[in-house]
């Protein structure tokens, strides 16, 4: 993998992001209603709405708004949230950190759990362990987050058990234990569907690798099974697993919207729903751009990891 390749990939990412901003801006511009109406709600008189529109700059035409927005971004200024009267960068920045911590924990635990599960299932193909993992993964992959979250709330956080807080957020800097107890349910909800998906993918990759010629060759060299799995099979099934995980980041970024809403996690997803409901365009724009960037970068990073794992890609 050359520097030129990386630069080209980064340029492609930027190109993609330009398409994204333009598309999103176009969509948000034609959303019915605007922030002024939403802010004042049912107590807004026509005069008050007009006054607020003037103050928020909503009376200008869309391309002026778009270009001033793009200009702002290029100079690092994401503008002012229409609804929250705070700089977008502050609002979105805080939310991003919170989302990142939740998504990061979910992703890391998923990776730690799903890959061994998939490997275990592949090695023990056709056994009870495989069946149990298979059943789990199908159930996991078929439950939307809001169902999982609701059932977890009902049983784990409900009055019957009350093991965990039913939602909310404690910053890591305030209390590590508080953060941990609050992050468990949302992270579990997010993680379940991904664990199911990734372990299934790893299982099929691993099964394919295990039935490959070079694994047969390795075994016929008299190597012990442990070495065959660890040294020969795993590295070859990890690269596809990384690709799957990076694609699932996109899914995670979607799932986080629902999970944050239910568990009162002050992250991007909840902010996005709030911004959508209030037609807070600068915030919608910034979040979409941010999520698309994260997604694109995660794909880029996964490509780099795959290149490290698989020498064929590295020198291609």
């Amino acid at each position, binding site marked *: 993998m050359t520097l030129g390749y990386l630069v080209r990939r980064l340029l492609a990412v930027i190109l993609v*992001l330009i398409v994204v901003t333009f598309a999103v801006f176009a969509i948000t511009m034609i959303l019915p209603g605007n922030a002024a109406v939403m802010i004042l709600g049912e107590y807004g008189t026509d005069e008050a709405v007009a006054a607020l529109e003037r103050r928020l700059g909503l009376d200008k035409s869309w391309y002026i708004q778009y270009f001033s927005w793009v200009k702002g971004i290029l100079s690092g200024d994401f503008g002012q949230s229409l609804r929250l009267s705070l700089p977008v960068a502050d609002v979105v920045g805080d939310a991003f950190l919170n989302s990142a911590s939740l998504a990061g924990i979910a992703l890391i635990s998923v990776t730690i759990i799903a890959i061994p599960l998939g490997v275990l299932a592949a090695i023990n193909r056709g056994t009870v362990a495989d069946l149990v993992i298979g059943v789990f993964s199908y159930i996991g992959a*078929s439950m939307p987050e809001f169902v999982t979250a609701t059932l977890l709330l009902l049983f784990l956080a409900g009055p019957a058990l009350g093991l965990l807080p039913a939602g909310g957020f404690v910053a890591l800097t305030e209390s590590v234990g508080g953060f941990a107890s609050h992050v468990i349910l949302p992270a579990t909800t997010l993680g379940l569907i991904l664990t199911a998906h990734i372990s299934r993918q790893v299982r099929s990759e691993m099964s394919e690798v295990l039935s490959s010629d070079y694994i047969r060759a390795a075994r016929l060299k008299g190597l012990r099974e442990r070495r065959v799995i660890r040294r020969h099979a795993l590295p070859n099934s990890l690269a596809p697993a990384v690709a799957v995980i990076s694609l699932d980041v996109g899914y995670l970024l979607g799932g986080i919207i629902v999970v944050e809403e239910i568990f009162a996690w002050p992250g991007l997803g909840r902010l996005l729903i709030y911004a959508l409901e209030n037609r807070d365009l600068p915030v919608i724009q910034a979040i979409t751009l941010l999520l698309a960037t994260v997604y694109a970068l995660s794909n880029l990073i996964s490509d780099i990891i795959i290149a490290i794992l698989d020498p064929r890609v590295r020198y291609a």
Partner: protein
Amino acid sequence: MPKAFRTAAGFTGIVLLSLVMTAAFFGPFMAPYDPQAFHPASRLEGPSFAHFLGTDQFGRDLLSRLLHGAPSTIFFGLGSTCIGVGVGSVIGVIAGTAGGWIDSVIMRVLDGLLAVPELLFTLLIVTFLGGGMGQAMLAVAVAFTPGMARIARSSVLSIRTREYVLAAIARGEPSHYVVLREVLPNAVGPIIVESSIRVAFAIMIGATLGFLGLGAQPPSTEWGLMVAEARQFMFRNAWTVAVPGVAIALAAMGFNLFGDALRDSLDPRQSQ
């Protein structure tokens, strides 16, 4: 029955799918009560002989609501997938057969759209369209389109270099014959497999939108909405959320299992 459907997983998929499809087609006729009828005397009750799955906050029969909700829930998934797959396939086939700069431009735009996480994309569109079942369906379809276009394109590309297609081109067959008779019939396999799994996904997204208040709207009996409406009451009667929640999971699981079995049965490595 193909071998892949004779496995436990495939069989379970078929059984679940037939249950779900039966409910989708005949559910409203099998329902014991009017799904909207109030039974003020028996609110938030658990299962009983009168109400097999219990009742909700208005005393409406959960089983009847579930059965009436099946068509909207299932056809949401099928409908949005069909539209998404249809439009996506057309775009993908165009890109795949045209090649050259048309292909390049289409692929770049698709890449741009694929960079937006699916649910986020759906949310934006549905907010733009104004919420509601039809709008949500369209939004999911639009969100599915880029991904399906990619799959259709790669399927077409892999078929396009098959020797029988080359033979047709070498014969000088008109391009519509090559695309419609030689390429498409053989490229639909992966597309069908992918769409059957996508249906599960669409059902889940549809329910999620209903849950977020952006999809189906009351008094619809769509299952996601049922969960959303019942959440307030879940500690008083867990059945109100469990029944539609489990139904969504079962429907999605049916399509997932079916899709996987379909994939296995079309996969030459597995069928030998």
